[in-house]
């Protein structure tokens, strides 16, 4: 039952983008007499300015993340934390992914691919990893892009809240998967 529901949802999602692309102008043109082409161009103009505006924020965040990753600090942290994690039922194999996820989308996808190839998609570790990947976001990237686009420099509690949510997502992934598949 779940399988067919998942398939159904994924089927529907294939049609959403094309339907929005044609449905919104259709509604505007037919019901509201909006000059759709001219309006589109006016809106689209902002695409360039916004993309350029986020460059300094992205450079700052991505350079710091890159330096941290390349130094091997993540491995040190892993060695240090793995006894504690084993104790609380958190598979140490999943820790690199959990730590990488808020930092880098491509980095964490690489780690997930690795986990699935090494342990097989039916393993608990792969299932936990995939659940983690699907339930958290690249917090630093989102922060840089969203705040950067409007020139916000003082981000207040956004980062702490985002990282807390990531941590909750990661631990939820571990324990729900242990409960279902463990």
């Amino acid at each position: 039952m779940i399988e067919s529901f998942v398939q159904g949802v994924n089927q529907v999602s294939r049609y959403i983008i094309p339907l929005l692309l044609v449905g919104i102008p259709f509604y505007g043109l037919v019901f509201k007499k909006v000059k759709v082409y001219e309006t589109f161009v006016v809106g689209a103009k902002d695409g360039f300015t916004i993309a350029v505006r986020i460059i300094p924020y992205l450079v700052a965040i991505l350079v710091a993340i890159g330096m941290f990753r390349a130094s091997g600090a993540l491995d040190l942290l892993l060695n240090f934390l793995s006894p504690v994690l084993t104790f609380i039922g958190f598979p140490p194999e999943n820790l690199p992914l959990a730590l990488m996820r808020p930092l880098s989308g491509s980095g964490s996808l690489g780690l997930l691919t690795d986990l699935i190839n090494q342990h097989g998609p039916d393993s608990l570790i792969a299932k936990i990893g995939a659940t983690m990947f699907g339930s958290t976001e690249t917090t630093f990237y989102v922060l840089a892009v969203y705040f950067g686009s409007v020139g916000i420099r003082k981000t207040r509690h956004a980062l702490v809240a985002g990282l807390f949510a990531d941590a909750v997502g990661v631990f939820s992934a571990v324990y729900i998967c242990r409960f279902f598949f463990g």
Partner: protein
Amino acid sequence: MLNYIWFGMMFVGVVVGIFTGNIDAVTAAAIDMAKVAVNLAIGLIGIMALWLGIMKIAEESGLIRLIAKGLRPITVRLFPGVPEDHPAIGSIVLNMSANILGLGNAATPLGLKAMEELQEINPDKETATNAMCTFLAINTSSVQLILPATVVALMGATSSQIFITTIFATGMSTIAAIAAVKFLEKRKQFAIQSGGNS
């Protein structure tokens, strides 16, 4: 906060790099990532232009306002600082819908549009408002109903098994995000202060 984390990552990177002998890799990463950042931003231009154009049509035809009105009961509670019928609410709702449906590359332009509209009602243009932080935290907690296409591709037949676990975990992280912002926005160290730095 971001000041310390940003500096901390580079500092730890350099110190650990020196001790592990990875210092060349650290240097290379710094230069590479600066390039990657620009490429990422440039790569966004086309998709941003497309969605912002479509969004403009949705705005002019009153669709955004309609959507904002429909979800008022929820959004008033989440974003009490934003006027009920402000266009930002419409963009926020559309961004979240795109996230829920797994439309990542539509979600970003919609989210940036929402940020722009939230910025219009922000008295201090350099400091994030409560509404912005709430919006951001919900976004980074990844609300989604559809598994990322990459995960489905990697997990194959097993992906339907992790559908429920992912919804559960993502639901927990979203609840945690909302609870965290609502708690933290009242704390003194995160209060809006002109000229301060946090």
